[in-house]
């Protein structure tokens, strides 16, 4: 059972890891929405050092608003970017429309 479902709000973490990681700096600390679960795959950070990378880790496609990524973004307000992120780089995030 995967931890997140489409529509869940998630924050992309900064794990501060050395070596080969697949989370570019510009999405770290940003919050988006899970667009889909892509399956589970060996951890690329482990594959990068010739280990098996098992057990496989859930991979999600996360949709982010371009305006959240770039302070000077001049395109349409509804423009988005999708990036695939492994489960261990994600945390649950609160729905901003929820009232306290």
């Amino acid at each position, binding site marked *: 059972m995967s931890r997140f479902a489409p529509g869940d709000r998630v*924050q992309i973490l*900064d794990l*501060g*890891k*050395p*070596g*080969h*990681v697949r989370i*570019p*700096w*510009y*999405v*770290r*600390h*940003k*919050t*988006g929405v899970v667009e889909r679960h892509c399956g589970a795959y060996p951890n*690329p*950070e482990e*594959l*990068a*050092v*010739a280990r098996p990378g098992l057990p496989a880790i859930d991979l999600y496609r996360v949709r982010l*608003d371009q*305006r*959240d*990524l*770039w*302070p000077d973004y001049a395109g349409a307000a509804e423009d988005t970017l999708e990036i695939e992120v492994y489960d261990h780089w994600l945390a649950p*995030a*609160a729905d*901003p429309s929820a009232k306290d």
Partner: protein
Amino acid sequence: MSAEDPAAPAPPDGPYRGYHDIGGRPAGPVARDEYAFADWQKLSEALRGALEAKGRLVSLDEIRRVFESFGEGLYNTLGFYERRAEALTVLLDEKGIVPRAAVLARMDAIAATECRAVDHVAKSVGPKAGDGPDGAR
């Protein structure tokens, strides 16, 4: 501004940010030129794929880790497939599958058939030493 604020800018840099992580860095316009793949590019990618498929002798993520540690100068000197081929050469040597010296010797032999020579430090191919007034060593 809290860590949960979606508008909070990510720190521009930090520990272990590599020179390859260029997203958001000043870079000018994106080049939109397209090129046909060269035969050597297809061949090197086929070799890489075979090494991945055969019990993952070499993984693409290992190749990425190696070219992300080339140093910025070499990384930017080489093209996309050249980076992969250079990193593959390093890994095949590390794993004891193909000695790097054998690959470099083969490059020299191929260049010699065209009366050229490889500079393995500068990563360039030029006229064979001795052919020009400044070529003698």
